[in-house]
């Protein structure tokens, strides 16, 4: 029996994945909510978007990380759809290759979902990391196909044409780089961000100091923000399916059990050692 145990333990990840898959297929449980009960963070984002006026021009620094984009993707798509519902015009720019790849994919998705193309501008990839960001504050290079009214405004006023900056973080050049390189060089325009949880300690001080007006940095805050919106027809631009809380709960319980098992084994070992010392 004991000889089989190592082989059975090797199947544990498969069992976990199967359990998560089954849980994902189950109907939503009304007693489980992903959204944070305190919607203060979501309200702060909404209030900031409300404050930037009608038909705002928003510069979107799109540099998520391929590995963690799935965490922020539903919130990013909802936020972009929310901005479009506010008649915003969005100019996308990326400073990393991964950000450019994901930005291209999202713009292609906007095309498939028939988003208004006159409200979208693809500024492409800017090389040079921090130097590229500084270059962006001195002049915005337009793509060859950028000949609409929005493109002409950006061409005339450069980065001064924008009413707000939205940074989709996750990669090396996230909100911190934008705050350090762009914010001191341009006027007082609001910076908001969506980041994966791993960047939260990095962006929290900027939120506290007011350099960032609003940040959606955890899945629960993102879910709370998504819950507050009614995008109507533009709901087609959001993620097709919301993350389901039941598989997440099961995964958390398994993780806690695994950590608890390790701690329990150490505690038992410690007790046995102390007993044997007493007996000796």
């Amino acid at each position, binding site marked *: 029996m004991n000889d089989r145990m190592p082989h059975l333990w*090797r*199947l544990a*990840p*498969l069992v976990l*994945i199967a359990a*998560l*898959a089954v849980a*994902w*297929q189950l109907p939503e449980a009304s007693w489980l909510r992903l959204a944070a009960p305190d919607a203060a963070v979501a309200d702060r984002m909404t209030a900031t978007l409300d404050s930037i006026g009608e038909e705002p021009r928003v510069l979107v620094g799109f540099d998520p990380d391929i*590995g*963690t984009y*799935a*965490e922020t*993707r539903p919130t990013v*798509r909802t936020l972009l759809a929310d901005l479009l519902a506010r008649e915003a015009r969005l100019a996308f720019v990326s400073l990393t*290759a*991964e950000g*450019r*790849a994901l930005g291209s*994919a999202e713009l292609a*998705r906007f095309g*498939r979902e028939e988003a208004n193309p006159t409200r979208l501008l693809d500024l*492409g*990839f800017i*090389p040079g*990391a*921090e*130097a590229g*960001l*500084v270059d962006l504050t001195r002049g915005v*290079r337009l793509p060859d196909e950028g000949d609409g009214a929005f493109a002409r405004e950006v061409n005339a006023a450069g980065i001064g044409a924008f009413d707000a900056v939205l940074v989709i973080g996750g990669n090396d050049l996230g909100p*911190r*780089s934008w*705050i*350090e*390189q762009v*914010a*001191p060089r341009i006027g007082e325009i609001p910076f908001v961000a969506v980041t*994966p*949880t*791993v960047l939260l*300690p990095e962006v929290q*001080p*900027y939120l*506290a*100091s*007011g*350099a960032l007006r609003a940040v959606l940095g*955890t*899945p629960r805050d993102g879910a709370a923000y998504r819950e507050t919106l009614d995008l109507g027809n533009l709901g087609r631009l959001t*993620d*097709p*399916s919301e*993350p*389901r809380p039941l*598989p*997440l709960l099961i*995964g*958390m319980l398994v*993780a806690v059990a695994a950590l608890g098992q390790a701690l329990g084994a150490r505690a038992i070992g410690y007790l046995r050692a102390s007993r044997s010392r007493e007996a000796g």
Partner: protein
Amino acid sequence: MTGFFGTSTADLVATWVAAVVTLVVLGALLGERRLFGWTQHLLAGLATGFLALIVLTELIGPRLVQPILADPSSRPELWVGLALVATAAASPWLPRQVSVIPVSIAIGALAAFALGGAVIGTLLPQIDAAIVRPGGSAATTLGGALAVAVTGLVLIGFLHGVPRGRVLSTAAGAGRWLLIGGIGGWLGFLIFSRLILLVDRIAFLLGDWLGLVP
């Protein structure tokens, strides 16, 4: 459902390729490491290839070569840039004293921008924000004082090998426990966010690939 894939043949092929690669990566959990290693190489190769492609098509082509070809004499700085690109590309065959020039310029410029930005954009505003203002609420003041106390205790916890008395030892112990507590809380956050990534992959397999969910 990720929403990345449409209904065209190319999208269908992309979905299948993504599903197979996802299964190979998940197969590493069962001990299948060879295929997993190949997918890592595939990812590294694709990322490098994509970076090279966008640098060629969005930088070197339109912003360096094309302006030079259009009017070779009007932009002398571009010739310097072209020489640096050529030097970087030929670095394996050039003397070290020459090949380090473009790398040194790149590192020096990035370090200068990063340092200046860190001071102007982060350090000074954060120091300014940390100063307790007379008009602030009691809760803000208390929160700031608590943050200072925790930061101080954790910093003291890093004092190793320094002669210290009972008070300092107690403070260092408290600092280490606060650090462990912070790391524990952070681990919980990260487990939750990583679970979302795993569940998203399962949702992709069930929804985008197998079509089991509308």
